């Protein structure tokens, strides 16, 4: 039972608490470059999920045989192999998508998320947990990219996944230009921080409230709301 709960947490932490896009600011280059449309975001996310899961699994399997000094080079070769697999597959199966993502598919090799998870997680944990971690982080990344891509596509061209959603909308061309990427992500980060702060402040207030109640019980021996004395 305990193992299952922690397995779920392993996946869930990547979605919000340690979301690679919004919280850790990893993999910024593809995040900003390809999110002109929602579809691009999903495709990039899927490619990263595949590479992340495969490389995390592989690295956690061979982690005991890699000498410490050359581990980064070994990780990069493993990652580059899977990236080549994705690149060639996409070129053969989805030529259109592959050309709209351009050089950013091979550039997954230097995406800090993948090397970061390899170094921080897969090199220290077993294969099963490493895969769970990769799935969580990959889905978190996909979620971030899709969200950003949807926002920019709706505002920048009035469509979502190529379907018109805002018929009489004067498109904000800046949203699909590089500048729009920076501005949108900056504002989203502000929003995420605002949400986190509000939630945390509320939680802290609740904790303070609770501790005040316990302190009072300890001092007076009376729980609040109990009718024993007229002091309240």
């Amino acid at each position: 039972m305990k193992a299952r709960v922690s397995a779920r947490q392993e996946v869930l932490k990547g979605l919000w608490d340690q979301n690679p896009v919004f919280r850790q600011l990893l993999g910024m280059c593809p995040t900003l470059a390809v999110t002109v449309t929602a579809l691009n975001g999903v495709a990039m996310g899927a490619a990263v999920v595949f590479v992340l899961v495969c490389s995390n699994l592989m690295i956690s399997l061979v982690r005991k045989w890699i000498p410490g000094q050359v581990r980064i080079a070994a990780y990069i070769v493993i990652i580059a192999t899977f990236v080549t697999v994705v690149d060639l597959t996409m070129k053969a199966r989805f030529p259109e998508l592959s050309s709209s993502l351009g050089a950013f598919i091979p550039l997954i090799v230097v995406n800090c998320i993948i090397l970061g998870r390899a170094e921080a997680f897969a090199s220290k944990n077993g294969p099963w947990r490493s895969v769970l971690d990769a799935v969580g982080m990959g889905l978190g990344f996909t979620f971030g990219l899709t969200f950003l891509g949807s926002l920019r596509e709706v505002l920048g061209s009035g469509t979502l996944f190529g379907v018109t959603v805002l018929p009489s909308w004067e498109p904000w061309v800046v949203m699909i230009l590089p500048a729009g990427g920076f501005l949108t992500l900056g504002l989203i980060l502000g929003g995420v921080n605002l949400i986190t702060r509000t939630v945390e402040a509320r939680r802290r207030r609740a904790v303070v409230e609770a501790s005040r109640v316990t302190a009072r019980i300890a001092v007076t021996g009376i729980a609040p709301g109990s009718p024993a004395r007229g002091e309240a």
Partner: protein
Amino acid sequence: MDLLLIFIGAAVVNNFVLSYFLGICPFIGVSGRLSSAVSMGMATTFVLVMTAMVTWVLQAYVLGPLRLEYLQTVAFILVVASLVQFVEMVIRKTSPPLYRALGIFLPLITTNCAILGLALFIQLRGYGFVQSVVFGLGAGVGFTLALCLMAGIREELDLADVPGPLRGAGITLLVAGTMALAFMGFAGMI
């Protein structure tokens, strides 16, 4: 003239950071102080030019003739990683003060996507050797320019009253967006 166009194109018109989004991680991470931004920019420029030379030769004389193009990604990243290691060793031997100034930034350059991106762009556009070197130099100058501008702005920003949730990365991205808008003005130059 052709070379000049490539240089200006890579340095300002299609600035690597502000219009291709390459090298965003150091752009946000190392742009806090002007002095470290200059050092980082110089080191990156150096590695960019070296990478342009080595990967061009590798592609033209090894991968191309042997029909090993599918190994491109793996081969290029290994070149970049070993180049960075090599540069680090050379600088440590020849100029200890420069090594101390750049020290921590050098290993970071391996995962700077501008480097691998440059190697891939050179192949996509079919540049010759001299063109590749000029392209690398232009990209490096453009990266340094963007990094230094950002560092200058952020040093001033420390004194500004930024709304709480936007402090840190948020305001940096907004400033970068404004800079990207300004750089769009160069689009008519070529």
